């Protein structure tokens, strides 16, 4: 009996409660930014006339200043899958704006996360198995260095080196200027070409902590008594490393990995700005600066949902990989 039903129910209930709290928080958060939104839209869309401002107010449920009323409107709209209309990109609905940016973010952040973890784990394992070798020391040194510099600095350096000096890759954007005129294959090539540097920068930037965590955990697991017993049994090195070492060391990394996956949707704000990559991160940043409430709410909600969903998934999967967990 790996998963007790009570455990599953508790995790789902927790996820639901968190979602609810997240929705409320989402609602309140953008409103912390001072300013009356209706006036802002009216002036931004340069309409000027008070009737139009009134109409917009009504549309956004802003006619009644009471927070409770606005919140009710918000919930009702949410239930219908309506995330509202972006102030800044009026009249484009928020969902459309988000969906346009989402694939870009998913692409680079997801791929770089997977790459980063895979590489980090392999390097960490090798370092723990052969501590003190030049490989291990170099890996540790590089890890500490990378952890000590801003993410975006790595991006800028890579652009300088590979984009400008060597001219191997484009220096920004998600695709080339002549994108629309390209064939399907050409489009794919253009996208891939433009994605390399962002993916590599992101992967390198987050690589360090993955190396360190797994290396430390594996080093610790290797000192456990069951490892001594495994060696005494004369089991092959591979079996010992994997079944006795990594499978135990991996457990904490798994949670971290799932957590990162959940955060993928949020994108990487600074990196996207460095590369002028039209992902969710950049979108959120601009939305905040433009006081675009619905867009901010929509973006945060999407991020919250993905994190909660992935965390729930992680909680439900975890008992299968760590048999010691089944209740508390």
């Amino acid at each position: 009996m790996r998963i007790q039903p009570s455990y599953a129910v508790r995790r789902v209930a927790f996820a639901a409660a968190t979602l609810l709290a997240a929705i409320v928080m989402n609602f309140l958060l953008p409103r912390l930014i001072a300013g009356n939104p209706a006036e802002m839209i009216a002036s931004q869309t340069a309409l000027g006339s008070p009737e139009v401002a009134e109409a917009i107010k009504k549309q956004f449920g802003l006619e009644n200043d009471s927070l409770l009323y606005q919140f009710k409107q918000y919930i009702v709209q949410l239930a219908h899958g309506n995330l509202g209309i972006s102030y800044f990109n009026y009249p484009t609905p928020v969902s459309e704006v988000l969906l346009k940016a989402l694939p870009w973010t998913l692409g680079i952040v997801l791929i770089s996360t997977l790459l980063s973890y895979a590489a980090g784990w392999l390097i960490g394992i090798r370092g723990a198995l052969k501590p003190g070798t030049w490989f291990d020391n170099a890996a540790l040194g590089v890890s500490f260095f990378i952890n000590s510099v801003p993410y975006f600095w790595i991006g800028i350096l890579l652009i300088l080196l590979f984009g400008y000096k060597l001219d191997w890759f484009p220096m920004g954007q998600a695709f080339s200027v002549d994108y629309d005129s390209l064939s399907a294959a050409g489009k794919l090539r253009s996208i891939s070409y433009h994605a390399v540097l962002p993916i590599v920068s992101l992967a390198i930037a987050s690589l360090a902590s993955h190396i360190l965590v797994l290396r430390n955990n594996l080093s610790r697991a290797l000192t456990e008594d069951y490892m001594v017993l495994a060696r005494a049994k004369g089991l092959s090195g591979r079996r010992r490393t994997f079944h006795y070492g990594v499978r135990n060391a991996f457990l904490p990394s798994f949670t971290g990995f799932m957590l990162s996956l959940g955060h993928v949707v949020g994108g990487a704000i600074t990196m996207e700005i460095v590369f002028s990559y039209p992902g969710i991160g950049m979108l959120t940043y601009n939305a905040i600066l433009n006081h675009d409430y619905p867009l901010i709410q929509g973006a945060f909600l999407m991020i919250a949902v993905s994190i909660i969903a992935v965390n729930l998934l992680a909680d439900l999967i975890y008992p299968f990989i760590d048999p010691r967990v089944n209740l508390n």
Partner: protein
Amino acid sequence: MSLLEINDLRIEYVSARGPFKAVDGVSFTIERGEIFGLAGESGCGKSTTAYGIGRLLRGPARIAGGSIRFDGTELTELSDAQFDAYRWARISIVLQSAMNNLNPVMKIKDQLIDAILAHRKGTLRSDALRQAGELMELVDLPKDRLERFPHELSGGMRQRVVIAMALALRPELIIMDEPTTALDVITQKGIIDKIIELKRAFGFSVLFITHDLPLMLEICDRIGVMYAGRIAEIATRERMLAGARHPYTQGLLRSFPSLTGPRARLEGIPGSTPDLIAPPQGCRFRERCPHALPQCGSEAPFVLEDRDGRVNCHLYAKEEAFDEAAVASP
């Protein structure tokens, strides 16, 4: 020929201040079918000796010299690959019960069979599982526990599993390092009885390590007492019960309460163990020995070997010249 012959074994740990001589010239033998105990206080080197024999020393520890002959073969000369053939098939090990002996993420059955599958190439998994079932029977454990994980078993059950595991390939020597120390007395008795029963059935030898001397007197045929990296005395059980010869062993025996007899104040041994990086000249026990002679501070202890065992002590240098009774009384 003895099953195991240890001769002048030396194991040291590398440290900043110089090598720490954890085991400094230890010699003893273990016969076939014999339970040999290695006793001593914490830090005397008994576990290190055991790990050295099993080639399980970690990190800063290394064998600095001496010989380990197993069934005639010099183990120290074998390559790692050659030694692997000995692992578990001829020499297996049971570790202390309180520690993480069993892999938490593997089922019991998998841990029982992986040694079988590793050494007997070509064994079918089904066959190995059947053997695992037999092993569980040997230690009186129900077979359904095979599907469980270690944390689902009690401490006593886990220790039985570890013993069953040690028997998987029917080894000739089983090293047991404090196998019952963390268990309650009743469970402990069950485990000890089981070990004796299995030994009778399969005829393996046991190197039994513990600091619990009274326990050792119950189960072991011969006992070696270590102090500060050296052997102080080796004696048969009978000889020990009649009265140990080395002052240290006597001190040890006096520190354990007796179940019967008049109530007496427990005596310890005053002082503390010497620094093994720069050990004292002569006998290492000199500082704490109530019978120390002048030569104990400069000459290595005299070795007396006779039918009853061996004693490393100057008090026995001229047998007829002293009074054994005087030594035996405090």
